[in-house]
């Protein structure tokens, strides 16, 4: 017998709080660690109310040390806990890079499975909110390149909650990137309680037959607006939200490319060796998809320059116009 699941409209950040709350309640080994996550409830309020509910032994205000947060989380994860480590901004993760690349990602392999690191690293990423320097980075490609860690990026409240729960239950390290521009951008129906959205599965958010547009995270609203604009010209785009950046959903990418034969990939991270480069190679490696191409694959990305100070961030970010320009180019190809 199935009971009806209650849903409510909540924001993306509320969905993230709910995912942690749900898992903290279900699994006593789940911990939250980070700078200002306790008493303050996180600088974005992602952990609001959790300290009051679960106490300082499980919602832990750490010293100001990213390498320390990740390094001790590795030890906790190896020894029976499931840490959710918050890095305050993705641009602050670099001191912890050594811990992730040399340890979190390798311990299962180095011990042939004797020790494992079931931890989640949460970090708000991306530009467009007039934040100070270093607060707006989108360096996901550093981590998709790195063997041994999954990379997940939700773009809406429903996926955010379901994917975060799946990440917490995953037996290996997961980097969970949160589009800070979408934290409070709108409310969506989200079920109460426990549910999962599978890691490794993309989603078609708009069906179409002419052009496949692949994107993720904070770029999704930009892509959808460009696709809607092109729809008025009679161009039907199929928009896919990748949701997981490693491992990519090869099957869905393949079937959509075979249908449309034309592809645009959009991300705000830097161009060289960014996700678009990997997806282009993936299409090349998937013979049926490659042979169905009717035009060169197009990409709209952040430039190969550091994410600028905010007076120039709109110039840096892919725009609706830039995506629309590529749609028109491919439609006329």
């Amino acid at each position, binding site marked *: 017998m199935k009971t009806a699941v209650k849903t409510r409209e909540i924001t993306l950040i509320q969905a993230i709080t709910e995912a942690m709350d749900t898992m903290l309640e279900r699994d006593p080994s789940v911990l939250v660690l980070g*700078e200002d996550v306790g008493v303050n409830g996180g600088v974005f309020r992602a952990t609001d109310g959790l300290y009051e509910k679960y106490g300082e032994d499980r919602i832990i205000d750490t010293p100001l040390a990213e390498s320390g947060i990740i390094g001790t989380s590795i030890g906790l994860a190896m020894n029976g806990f499931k840490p959710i480590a918050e890095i305050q901004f993705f641009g602050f993760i670099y001191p912890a890079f050594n811990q992730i690349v040399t340890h979190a990602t390798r311990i299962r392999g180095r011990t042939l499975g004797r020790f494992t690191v079931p931890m989640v690293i949460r970090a708000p990423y991306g530009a467009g909110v007039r934040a100070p320097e270093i607060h707006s980075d989108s360096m996901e490609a550093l981590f998709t390149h790195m063997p041994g860690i999954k990379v997940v990026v939700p773009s809406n409240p429903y996926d955010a909650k379901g994917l975060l729960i799946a990440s917490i239950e995953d037996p290996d390290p997961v980097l969970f990137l949160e589009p800070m521009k979408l934290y409070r951008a709108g409310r969506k129906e989200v079920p109460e309680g426990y549910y999962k959205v599978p890691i490794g599965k993309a989603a078609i958010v708009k069906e179409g037959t002419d052009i496949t547009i692949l994107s993720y995270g904070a770029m999704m609203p930009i892509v959808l607006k460009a696709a809607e604009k092109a729809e008025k010209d009679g161009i039907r785009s199929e928009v896919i939200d990748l949701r997981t950046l490693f491992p990519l959903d090869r099957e869905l990418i393949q079937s959509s490319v075979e249908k449309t034969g034309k592809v645009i990939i959009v991300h705000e991270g830097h161009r060289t060796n960014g996700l678009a480069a990997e997806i282009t190679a993936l299409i090349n490696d998937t013979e049926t998809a490659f042979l169905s191409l009717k035009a060169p694959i197009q990409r709209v990305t952040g430039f*190969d320059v550091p994410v600028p100070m905010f*007076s120039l961030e709109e110039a840096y970010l892919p725009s609706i*116009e830039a995506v629309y320009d590529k749609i028109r180019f491919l439609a006329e190809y």
Partner: protein
Amino acid sequence: MTDYPMRQIIDGDGALVDDRYKDQLTPELVVEMYKKMVFARLFDRKCVNLQRQGRIGTYVPFEGQEASQVGSALAMREDDWMFPTYRDHGATLTFGHSLKNILMYWNGRYEGAVPPEGKRIFPPAVPIASQLLHATGAAWAEKKKGTDRIAIVYFGDGATSEGDFHEGLNFASVFQIPVIFFNQNNGYAISVPTTRQMHSRTIAQKAVAYDMEGIRVDGNDVCAVYFAVKEAAEKARRGEGPTLIEAVTWRYGAHTTSDDPSKYRDQSENELRRKTADPVGRMEKFLKRYGYWDEHLKAYETEATAEIETAVKAMESEPAADISHLFDYVFAASPWPIEDQKADYHRLKGGVR
């Protein structure tokens, strides 16, 4: 070994409590200290207002820390190096940074990190504690070049938890580098109190591990800060190595204009501290008590406000941010990917396909 009494020269009531410095407290010096603190405070308040009006971006206030920032900056020689954090524009403006550029920094402009010609002021460090190593390296270069220039680097209580803090102190100690590690312990790293940040009773005591002199000073006493830094600077110039100074202070306001401190601390403590330990108020009491006060100092606020308003106008009359700042300063000569992307940007802007 871990006993670091807090040095004070002027107490909360404005009374001189350390006679050794009496002769060095010239009328020119004490009036200068006072004026610089008043200026810094007015500037800081103006910036908070500009942010509230949407005329600049997120701003990091330093009100309450004027004695630490002004006292330390005045104690440096004008050709020395300064490595600030994002909360130290009170120090950089005292040290000769451009007011307009500091405002531009908070308005998201690259010009903001550029110091006036000849001033050795590094851009504010946004990552925590990374700048301790830069200061150590820059001072090391001066030592290698045989000059007597030194460096001062600013950081907060939270920074002492980062690996770079310890690496900076260790390098400076190993190579006996002429750098002053100037810590402002304002009690909180965003929401986390110093008591939770560390189990050590003081930050000064962390110098022991590096066999370095550690000094703990009342960071709201501009004179105590000034002489602590001056002595550390003289020592560094003599080739006698680095010093760690802990200036114990307090920020009245939020961590940034995006922060709400009522979530994590009792705000009534601010009012108590304003009454008993305010850096500007204390100096005013001192000046009055010892006959340095002069009615023209009252008018100084008007003068300072006018100077700040002029800088705000200059900042606001700047043309929009220059797109070349995005593309043309990553490398000395842009490699083809950046040139291509720049051309593509301009093509799209021009409406050409």
